[in-house]
C-alpha cells in the first residue's frame, strides 16, 4: 500500500465496475481517472497510486495516462471550468470577442483562475464540435452555443450559484434555468432552412441536456431561426 487511503468507497466501487466491463483491467485506467476526478475535481498524486494498485499497474503507468489527456487535471482548479473554442469555425463568428469579454468579466487571463476560485477559464484551440452553433463555450459538462456577451454574463451568473461538478456528483445536478438566454444546448441545429421548414412540419429535436431525467426526454424544442452573433 502506498500513501494514505484517499478514495471514497463509491469511487472504488466505480473503478471496480469499470474494471469488470473490459477484457483487460488496464482498459479501466481512463474510466478510473474520471471517477477520481469526479470525487476531487482533479487527480491527486496519492489517488493515482491507489488507482494503480487497484488495476495492478505501477503508479508511473497511471501518471503517464493522467498527463497525456487534456481533460484530466493534475492540480486543483476553480470550481467551474470554462473553455471557449477559438478554432477557425468559432473564430469566424466572433469567438475572439467572447474570449475578450470573458477576460474582462472574470478579471484574469486565459488559463488562470478567478481570485475567488469560482472559475478557471481558457481560450482553447481544441475544436469542441459545435461549429454550426458558434461561438460556443463549454462550462463543466455543458455546451452553451450562439453566444453573445450578454448571454455569457447570464450564464456566468447562473453557474456561479451552482455547486462544482465534484460537489454535486453524488446528487442530482440542478437544472439550469432558461434565464441564461436558452440554457445549455446540444447540437441545437437548424438542419433545414426556414423556407423548407415552413413547407413541412418543422423538425424538432430533443433538447438532450439532461439525460436520465424524464422531463428532459419529454422536453423538446422547435428549431429556432438562426441567431447569428455579431
Amino acid at each position, binding site marked *: 500500500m502506498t500513501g494514505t487511503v484517499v478514495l471514497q468507497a463509491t469511487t472504488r466501487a466505480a473503478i471496480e465496475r469499470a474494471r469488470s466491463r473490459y477484457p483487460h483491467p488496464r482498459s479501466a485506467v481512463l474510466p478510473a481517472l474520471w471517477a477520481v476526478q469526479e470525487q476531487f475535481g482533479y487527480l491527486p498524486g496519492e489517488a493515482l497510486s491507489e488507482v494503480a494498485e487497484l488495476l495492478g499497474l505501477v503508479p508511473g503507468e497511471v501518471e503517464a495516462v493522467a498527463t497525456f489527456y487534456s481533460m484530466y487535471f493534475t492540480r486543483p482548479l476553480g470550481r467551474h471550468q470554462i473553455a471557449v473554442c477559438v478554432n477557425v469555425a468559432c473564430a469566424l463568428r466572433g469567438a475572439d470577442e467572447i474570449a475578450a469579454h470573458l477576460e474582462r468579466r472574470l478579471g484574469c487571463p486565459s488559463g488562470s483562475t478567478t481570485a475567488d476560485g469560482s472559475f478557471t477559464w481558457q481560450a482553447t484551440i481544441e475544436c469542441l464540435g459545435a*461549429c454550426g452553433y458558434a461561438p460556443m463555450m463549454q462550462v463543466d459538462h455543458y455546451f452553451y452555443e450562439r453566444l453573445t456577451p450578454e448571454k455569457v454574463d447570464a450564464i456566468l451568473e447562473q453557474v456561479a450559484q451552482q455547486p462544482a461538478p465534484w460537489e454535486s456528483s453524488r446528487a442530482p445536478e440542478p437544472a439550469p434555468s432558461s434565464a441564461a438566454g436558452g440554457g445549455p444546448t446540444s447540437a441545437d441545429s437548424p438542419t433545414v432552412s426556414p423556407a423548407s421548414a415552413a413547407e413541412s412540419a418543422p423538425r424538432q429535436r430533443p433538447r438532450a441536456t439532461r439525460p436520465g431525467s424524464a422531463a428532459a*426526454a419529454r422536453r423538446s424544442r422547435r428549431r429556432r431561426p438562426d441567431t447569428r452573433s455579431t
Partner: protein
Amino acid sequence: MAEYRLLTKDIGTEGLETLPVYERVGGYQGLREALRRFTPDELVEEVKRSGLRGRGGAGFPTGQKWSFLPKDVFPRYLCVNADESEPGCFKDRYLIDCNPHQLIEGTLIAAYALQVRTAFIYIRGEYHQQRLLLERCIDEARRRGYVGESILGSEFSCDIVVHRGAGAYICGEETALLDSLEGYRGQPRLKPPFPAVRGLYGKPTVVNNVETLSNLPHIVLRGGTWFASVGTERSTGTRLWCCSGHIERPGVYELELGRPIRELLEEHCGGVWKGRRLKAFQPGGGSMQVLLPEHLDLPLDMDEVARAGSSLGAGAFVFMDETTCMVDVSRRLVEFYHHESCGKCVPCREGTYFEANLLRRLEAGQATRAELETLADICDNMNGKCFCPLGDTATWFVMSAYRAFSDEFAAHCGAGSCPLRGAPLAAARVA
C-alpha cells in the same frame, strides 16, 4: 433540391431518442431483418454491394475493410469511432443527440456481420451528455433484448460498452484510439499490421465512424443495390454535411452525394452572410486543403474533390467570406495541430512548433520575407514523414493557402500588424 433524408428522416419526431418512439418509426427492423435474412458473410457482401464508404475522413469502402478480418480468429472487436474532433465537424454529435438508437442498431448489425461479441463506442470526453444518452439507450435496448445474450432469440450475442475519452484529437486516429481504449496514452501504432489483423488487445478489430454505422439499418432494409443507386457511382448514399463559418444558416444538412457544392452553400446554407462574397472554403474539415469560389461547381463526390486537390474528409464545410485573413486561419489550424500532436514522432512534434511560431509572427506582421520562405521547407520536412496523418494534415491547409494567397502571406511580412484584421485580441491567444 430538397435535402435527401435517409439518416435524418425521423429527426424531429418527438421523443426519437427513446426506444418506444424509435421502434414506432421502424427502429430495430433492420437488425431483425439482418438476423433473419442474412448469414454474417452474406451481410458483409450486401454492405460491399452498397458501395458504402467510411464517413470518418478517409472514405475507405466499409465492406472491404470488414472483409480483411482473418477467418476463424476470435474474439474480434468492433470499435465505434465517436471521437469526433476534426475542426468544423459536428455531425456525429448531431446523430447521437437526435437518433442514438439508429447508431446502436447499426453497431449491432455490424457486430453481427463481423461476429463480434463486444463492441466499444469510443466517445470524446467533451461529449458528456451524449455519453450519458448512449448509456441510457443501451440499457433500454438491453432490457428489450436487442443487446446482450441471444439477441431477439437468435444465437447472436453482443454487448456494447461506452468508453469515454479525455480530450485528445489524436484518439480519432484508429490505432491511437485502440491504445487509448487499452488504457495507454493515445499514440498511433505502426501499420501494418492493420487493426483488422492485430487491433484491440492484439485481436482482429474494425473501427468504424458513427455516421458509417448509422447507414447500416437502411442498407439492410432497402438493400445494397438500392443504396448504390443513390449518389454517384463511386460515392454512394448520402452524407451529413456540417456547415459553418460565414454563412446565413449554419448547421447539418443531409444531401445525396453528387450534388454540386454550390447547392449546399446557396440553397441550404442561405449563401454567404451579410451579402458578402466567398473568399475560400474547406470541404473536409481543418485538415483539408483550401478550395476557392471557382470550385463551387464541383460535385459532392469524394473522388472529384480529391482530383481538385482537396478532400471531402469528414464532411465539414467551413466557408470564409472576403474579409477573412488566410494567415489567421492558417495560424489557428496550425496551433491546433501543435496542441494536438501526440509527440511520438519528431517531424510532427517539432514541425508544428516551428510552423506555429512562424505563423504567429507572420500574423502579427513581424516575420521577414526570409522567414516566410522557410515555411515550405518546414512543411516539406513533415508531409509524408510522420507516423500518422496528423503531421501531414498540419501542412495541407497552410501550403494550399500559401499557394492560393501568396500575395496575402507576403503582405504580412514586416507589416507590423495584420493588414486585414489589425491587432488581434490578446485574450484569444492560446497559451
